[in-house]
């Protein structure tokens, strides 16, 4: 008996044999493209019609929806309601009863879009729509975990589908640089907007545990969105942009060093971002590399603004002292000029502070 157990344990050691991970990752991408180009329409429709909320709204359980193609269902909805349900559903949120109808109309629209460029744009639009839904949900209903889960899952799905289409077009030798740039910007916008909203939500979460869970989720979504951006940006154009951004950041650093700013905390931030940028470059993640380089440059901009502000304050104080010493009176009419310059300085300081 024991010998048998030992033998099984020994056999199980073969599970430790490593496989070619790179091959598995590469094929995953190809499989994803293949799946996007050959979707399982019926399953999606089944999934949608299995959703509880839709059943609550339309008690049509006796009818066999599962065997109906999507367009027939939408057609019935359009005929019976004159398009009213579909139109009304467009403003619905993930936790609303009409939301599945909204998603269904989107999927039908996607199904009848045969041009890949248009399809990719549609997915990028839907990704941004999901972010808008998150924003609306948070402002109207507060934290609604179920609704957020649905919106976030759909968001990453659309971002991934956008990336898959771009990858597919590239693999067919098509030049999609302009489209990739446009869509990467859209996905980046979706990511930034989402980040801003979710960050405040995580901060406002009631318990420490909830805060932790949300932070983890946000990180996961962020990382998925960045992966998709990098998939879209896997081309020479994006590589050049990343390298240019890094060069620009280094120039900025040189200037800052010449002005004696080398020991500030912002400089540490700069180095940290540049390290991230270099790491992304080595992984050929051009979009992330460019974003990190831009963040690094921004970190130095803050230093410059701070110094500028300090210089202006000093200048103002010196001027004040001079006035106190009566030097201003000797200048006569010049006083008005000085006060107007002073006013301009004040405005400058105010604008610098507000910018920060």
């Amino acid at each position: 008996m024991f010998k048998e157990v030992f033998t099984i344990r020994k056999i199980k050691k073969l599970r430790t044999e490593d496989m070619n991970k790179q091959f598995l990752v590469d094929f995953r991408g190809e499989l994803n493209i293949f799946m996007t180009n050959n979707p399982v329409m019926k399953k999606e429709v089944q999934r949608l019609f299995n959703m509880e909320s839709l059943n609550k709204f339309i008690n049509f359980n006796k009818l066999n929806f599962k065997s109906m193609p999507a367009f027939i269902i939408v057609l019935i909805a359009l005929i019976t309601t004159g398009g009213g349900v579909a139109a009304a559903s467009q403003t619905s949120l993930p936790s609303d009863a009409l939301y599945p109808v909204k998603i269904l109309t989107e999927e039908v629209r996607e199904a009848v879009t045969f041009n890949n460029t248009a399809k990719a744009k549609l997915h990028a639009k839907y990704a941004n729509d999901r972010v808008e839904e998150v924003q609306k949900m948070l402002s109207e209903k507060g934290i609604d975990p179920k609704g957020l889960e649905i919106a976030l899952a759909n968001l990453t799905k659309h971002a991934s589908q956008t990336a898959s289409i771009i990858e597919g077009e590239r693999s067919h030798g098509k030049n999609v640089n302009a489209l990739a740039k446009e869509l990467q910007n859209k996905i980046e916008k979706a990511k930034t907007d989402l980040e801003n909203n979710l960050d405040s939500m995580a901060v406002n979460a009631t318990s420490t545990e909830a805060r932790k869970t949300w932070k983890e989720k946000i990180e996961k979504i962020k990382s998925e969105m960045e992966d998709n951006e990098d998939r879209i940006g896997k081309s020479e154009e994006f590589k050049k942009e990343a390298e240019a951004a890094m060069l620009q950041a280094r120039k900025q650093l040189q200037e800052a060093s010449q002005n004696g700013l080398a020991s500030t905390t912002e400089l540490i931030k700069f180095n940290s971002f540049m390290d991230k940028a270099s790491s992304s470059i080595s992984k050929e993640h051009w979009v992330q590399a460019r974003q990190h380089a831009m963040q690094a440059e921004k970190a130095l901009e803050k230093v410059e603004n701070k110094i500028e502000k300090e210089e202006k304050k000093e200048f103002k104080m010196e001027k004040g002292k001079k006035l106190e010493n009566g030097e201003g009176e000797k200048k006569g009419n010049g006083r008005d000029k000085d006060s107007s310059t002073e006013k301009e300085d004040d405005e400058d300081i105010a604008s610098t502070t507000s910018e920060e």
Partner: protein
Amino acid sequence: MFLEIYDKYGEQVMRHISFRVSNNKEAQDIFQETFLRTWKSLVNEQKIENLRAFVYMVARNLIIDFYRKKSRSDIALDDLGANEPSSNDLADSTSDKIEVKKIKAAIESLETDNEREIVYMRYIDDLSVKEIATMMDKNPNNIRVICHRGLKKIRNQLYV
């Protein structure tokens, strides 16, 4: 959903195919075809109760086709080098490497392809007796007996 299955079991399926088809390039082709065909089956609305078992079944059929096309002796001659594990392939220490080689040899020494396949699926791929029985169109008791006998033979080989 399908990509989750791929992430979870892809490596395992690749290991299974590599064990049975020693040529790395051929094994990779069969692996890719396995997942593409499984997805096509989903697109064609084929009823699949256990997706993981289905993936294994597709892989199994492709391996059978592969051996049908090529005679086994040819492949063995072709792939003598390819079957040698690389330094990165196996567990780190040399003693572990020797042990893994010994276990592989013990499984290889089983008399029939069926026996090797069933032992591999049961103890390395961790498929249930029921799943293997359905896949191979055999009685579960029959699978249990083959597993037991195979295990006994491997044990004898390892503890000689």
